[in-house]
């Protein structure tokens, strides 16, 4: 690359940073201007950014409903962890078996194909009827959300493993069982992890939906309460926290992926 080209890209890069920063700052400034200074929006419609910030600060110490802020975060976290745990415990083994044993595949696939198009959130009324409005119904809905993407990806991962790998293992004298556990499953880990990532994203949505519809704790409850009590700053607090939680969950999965599939380059 010639010198002038380098300068050109330097300039582009600097300009991009400036534009990006000013865009975020401009957004906050507009928000502040519209709410606090010009008063275009009444505080029960859109609270000012400072108000949201102070609400977060305040609710760390003062309880909202049954819990303080960290209590609500903890409750949501427990729900999502239990739901994800159950879903992974069922979906990954089932996916591996379905991908490996054709008979099981042709028996289970049609049932899964019937259930899969139903959005997990549409299970909420039935879940409440079956498990009440406690932990059970939330975990059930989250588990359904996580289950299908994980199952499908595991299944595809196992089913479409490079046949060459299997042949090589056979030539080297591996038994069927060894091929499954030593070759096929490790080879499908990247797809499985990708499925878990999609699933957990969906699971976060299910968590919010379940907590919006029926809960007295959790971040979704905070979001709902803010709407019901005309305290949008509470809703925005919950939305920000759920966003951060989702980002963190994604980060954790990515880090896990990098550790497990160390052989795969970025």
């Amino acid at each position: 690359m010639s010198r002038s080209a380098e300068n050109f890209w330097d300039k582009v890069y600097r300009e991009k940073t400036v534009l990006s920063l000013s865009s975020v700052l401009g957004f906050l400034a507009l928000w502040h201007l519209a709410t606090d200074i010009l008063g275009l929006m009444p505080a029960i419609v859109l609270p000012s950014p400072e108000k949201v910030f102070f609400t977060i600060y305040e609710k760390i110490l003062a309880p909202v409903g049954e819990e303080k802020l960290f209590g609500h975060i903890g409750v949501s976290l427990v729900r999502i962890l239990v739901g994800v745990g159950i879903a992974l415990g069922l979906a990954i083994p089932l996916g591996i078996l379905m991908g490996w044993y054709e008979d099981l595949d042709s028996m289970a696939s049609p049932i899964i194909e019937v259930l899969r198009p139903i959005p997990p959130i549409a299970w909420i009324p039935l879940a409440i009827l079956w498990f009440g409005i406690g932990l059970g119904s939330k975990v059930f809905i989250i588990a359904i959300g996580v289950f299908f993407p994980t199952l499908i990806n595991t299944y595809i991962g196992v089913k479409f493993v490079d046949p060459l790998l299997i042949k090589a293992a056979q030539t080297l004298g591996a038994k069927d069982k060894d091929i499954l556990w030593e070759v096929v499953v490790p080879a499908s880990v990247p797809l499985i992890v990708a499925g878990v990532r999609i699933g957990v994203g969906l699971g976060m949505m299910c968590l919010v939906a379940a907590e919006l519809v029926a809960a007295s704790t959790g971040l979704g409850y905070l979001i709902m309460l803010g709407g019901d009590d005309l305290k949008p700053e509470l809703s925005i607090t919950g939305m920000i926290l759920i966003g951060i939680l989702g980002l963190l969950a994604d980060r954790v999965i990515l880090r896990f992926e990098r550790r497990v599939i160390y052989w795969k380059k970025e």
Partner: protein
Amino acid sequence: MLAVVSVISVIGVWFLLTSVFRVIPPAFLPPPQNIVTDFLRILGTPYVGHTLIGHTLVSLQIVLGGFFSAILIGIPLGVLMGWFKRIEAIVDPLFQLLRPIPPLAWIPLSLLWFGIGIQSKIFVIWLSAFVPCVINSYTGIRLTEPLLVKAALGLGVKNQRDLLREVAIPSALPIILGGVRIGLGAAWMTLVAAELLASDAGLGYMMQMARRALEPSVIILGMLVIGILGALMARGLRMLEKWVCPWVKEEEH
């Protein structure tokens, strides 16, 4: 063959447990034939305000309204973000700030802003479908093969607009349509959540009312209708995809 046996045996076991041995009470899981009779019942006579068709039309109207407006705004925005570095630099950071928030979480604010009418639901559905439309259009344009651009320049394409229209957009089309498909799924999910929370008609409302009346067969009916409509629309999109970009090979889904 196994497939047929397996579906029939699931329904058979369901029937036996609920209808013959009565191990499972009908308020918990109704026998399969109840779903059929309830289907026939509410197809003609209104249930909580509308017939099944009425509720379905209300839901469809909201989904399609939000979904199409998301396509109309999201795809052009994504394409512009992918093509013009300056627009990307301005819009992308805002987008990255808002993106981690699940669209569903906007429902209470949306109700506060737009009331419990149709606008609040269209807004959240728009939001849910908008995000994948933008992201995929943006990614699709950014992934345009540089060789194609060079070839077009070599063949004498002069202005940016032609390059965008004749090279970048067609090459990004499969990815853009993938985003549309993701958006459709998100739109259905959000619709159900919005209707469960606050509405006076629609499939989600029907299911919520059925839950209060302890009529699980109507809930299951609602789930089936939502599932079938979602699957049909996804199938339609896939056909459109094949028709619009016939060069893309069938991939495994």
